């Protein structure tokens, strides 16, 4: 146990704290990160609790069985998220990676290493776990279930999912790499967020609609739904308990024999080296590859679009799509630029030897994220413009906002370059808040007034106020862009002096 806690204290801190250059990094950062993650998932969990409690109460008053169906449906979906996310992470953790390579040289039992990796993989699914807990809590209260038996059921359910997934992960260990794991986690986070909104949207569903959904949810009560065994019936609960014990035993035997096989990334030998002879093309191609190969990029693109479409679906208002997509995308542009910029700063000693001005290398880092995201916004704009009346003024304003965000992102990296290429924590918490405040604040300030201006029912006074807010936001965005760009140039020059 002592070894396990030492691993958590020193090892897991590296999993969570990626800004290795930070002087503020402390060895207890795992504990801090755990608390932060808990605090982060707690508010959403509480909201989910109240919404599901309200929903279960309504359904329970109609028919307790419908309430149970709804509960089992949530549990099944969440279990699926958990297994997919957990498996990806565990399969990577149980294969040979940089951390394992080092840990294997230490006098620590393989079993302890495996349990430690399993623990870290479980904690990585904290977001989904908190949903579980709060949905179950609300259902337990509504269905007046025995608390001790209820907690036991939840415990067995987790044990079953973890032991089952762990055995699979050990057997398939070495089949995933960091990239795949991150992609899976991005998708799970996205699903979890949409799941959250799905729960909220269920508040507006009337009882007739729920009745018609009973047929659809019915599969969740069947014995083949192993993802909810502990909750379907007492017989299946015992079966889940026995299988959990069996899986745990199998896992503990396998754990001590685990070879931590290296991950084999499949690569094609079919390539032909060819130069294109143009410097700018080379830089753009390289940066475009970096953008598309970065796993988080998927999240940066899908999240704003999905979020916007979901909101427009709920509100039946196509303005909302655009006005949701633009501020979120503006915020993410800073991250995308920061990722590309950081690749240059991490490899500065090699890059500065190239016969290219450093500023030439940096320009695509602003242009690529700005252009890709502008294309996304334009697509959403075209889609929304078909459905409703929109102002083309949105396009140049968005361009200005994206450019500003990109410059800010690059400035923060140039000011304090991280010494690792791992981009999970490219900005500190303070920097993230500053970027969020500036980008989203100015995006709302510049875009939202347009909705008032194109609405014929808006009063004259409101129009004047809207115009003033919009002009002020555009002006501030321009000033920030120019001011930050000047400071950025200074920092880029400074990087040649140190």
């Amino acid at each position, binding site marked *: 146990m002592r070894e396990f806690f030492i691993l958590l204290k020193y090892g897991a801190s590296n999993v969570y704290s990626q800004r290795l250059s930070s002087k503020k990094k402390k060895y207890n950062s795992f504990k801090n990160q755990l608390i932060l993650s808990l605090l982060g998932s707690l508010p959403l969990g509480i909201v989910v609790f109240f919404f599901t409690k309200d929903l279960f109460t309504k359904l329970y008053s109609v028919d307790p069985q419908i309430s149970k169906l709804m509960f089992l449906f949530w549990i099944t979906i969440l279990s699926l998220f958990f297994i997919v996310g957990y498996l990806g992470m565990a399969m990577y953790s149980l294969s040979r990676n940089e951390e394992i390579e080092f840990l294997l040289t230490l006098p620590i039992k393989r079993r302890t290493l495996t349990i430690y990796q399993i623990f870290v993989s479980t904690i990585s699914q904290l977001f989904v776990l908190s949903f579980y807990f709060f949905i179950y809590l609300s259902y337990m209260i509504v269905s007046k279930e025995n608390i001790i038996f209820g907690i036991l059921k939840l415990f067995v359910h987790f044990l079953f999912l973890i032991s089952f997934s762990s055995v699979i992960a050990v057997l398939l260990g070495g089949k995933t790499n960091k990239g795949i794991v991150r992609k899976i986690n991005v998708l799970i986070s996205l699903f979890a967020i949409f799941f959250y909104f799905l729960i909220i949207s269920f508040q507006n569903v009337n009882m007739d609609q729920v009745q018609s959904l009973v047929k659809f949810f019915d599969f969740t009560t069947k014995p083949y739904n192993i993802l909810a065994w502990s909750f379907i019936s007492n017989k299946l609960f015992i079966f889940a308990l026995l299988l959990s014990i069996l899986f745990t035993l199998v896992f503990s035997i396998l754990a001590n024999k685990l070879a931590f096989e290296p991950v084999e*990334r499949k690569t094609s030998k079919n*390539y032909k*080296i060819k*130069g*294109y002879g143009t410097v700018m093309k080379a830089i753009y191609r390289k940066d475009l*590859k970096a953008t598309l190969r970065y796993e988080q990029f998927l999240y940066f693109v899908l999240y704003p679009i999905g979020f916007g479409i979901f909101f427009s679906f709920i509100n039946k208002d196509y303005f909302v799509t655009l006005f949701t997509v633009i501020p979120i995308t503006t915020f993410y542009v800073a991250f995308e630029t920061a990722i590309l910029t950081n690749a240059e700063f991490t490899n500065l000693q*090699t890059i500065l030897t190239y*016969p290219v*001005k450093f500023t030439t290398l940096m320009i695509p880092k602003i242009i690529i994220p700005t252009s890709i995201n502008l294309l996304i916004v334009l697509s959403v704009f075209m889609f929304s413009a078909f459905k409703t009346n929109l102002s083309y003024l949105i396009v140049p304003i968005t361009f200005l906002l994206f450019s500003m965000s990109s410059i800010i992102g690059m400035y923060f990296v140039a000011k304090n370059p991280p010494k690792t290429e791992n981009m999970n924590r490219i900005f500190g918490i303070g920097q993230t808040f500053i970027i969020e405040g500036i980008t989203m604040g100015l995006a709302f300030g510049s875009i939202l007034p347009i909705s008032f201006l194109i609405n014929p029912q808006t009063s004259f006074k409101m129009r004047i106020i809207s115009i003033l807010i919009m002009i002020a936001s555009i002006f501030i965005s321009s000033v920030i862009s120019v001011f930050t760009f000047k400071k950025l140039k200074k920092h880029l020059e400074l990087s040649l002096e*140190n």
Partner: protein
Amino acid sequence: MIKAKNLTKKFKDVIAVDHINIDVPQGQIFGFLGPNGAGKTTTIRMLTGTLKPTDGEVEILGLNLKKHEIEIKRRIGVVPDEPRIYSHLKGFEYLEFVMDIYRINNKETLSKIEDLCNAFGVNYLEKMISDMSHGMKQKLILISVLMRKPEVVFLDEPTVGLDAKSAKILKELLKNYAKQGTTIFLTTHILEIAEYMCDVIAIINNGKIITQGTMEELKKQTGDENKTLEDLFLKLTAQEEDIKHIVESLSR
């Protein structure tokens, strides 16, 4: 080919390189030795235009570095002390990138790449750089530099991470390049390499060049012709007594 006059670098209050003068003619292999933190890498960085000197002038290929930085960079090759390259690219994509950056696209370069890959046992160009080991990346950087056959090559600890065969090939290749007129500026901690390869050796300590000359000249300076470069190095950098003392104390 490589000239530095009063080259100085200060980092706040620390003088990393203190008014050093270097003159390396064409075709010479110049060994730049010194203990850790002596100022070797800082000097290379200033000579290759990746770090601005606090004072002094640098001339490479007869051109002033301040005025002709990009042109000089196009004509020289640099192998940094750490093989840090874009991890998101595949090996062959990195070579393509370098070809484009240096505006070279000819059959000769492509066949040179193939020859160098065969020589260094590089059969992993399809791999992502992030999946490569230190030695694999070091070979990739070496190939990216040598494929261009630059007029001046700066190498900072080039054999670190290389297997014995690749290290030997590199040493012989550099000697041949020098014979053909390429100027080579090399730093290494492996003194046997310096002794074997370098025409002229300079030793830097605490930012100052404490001695410079051919192997024979250095031996004469110390007054003992039977001494190895290691003996000379330790004597000149005043580490000989330190080592005796440390070993005795640790052996207790």
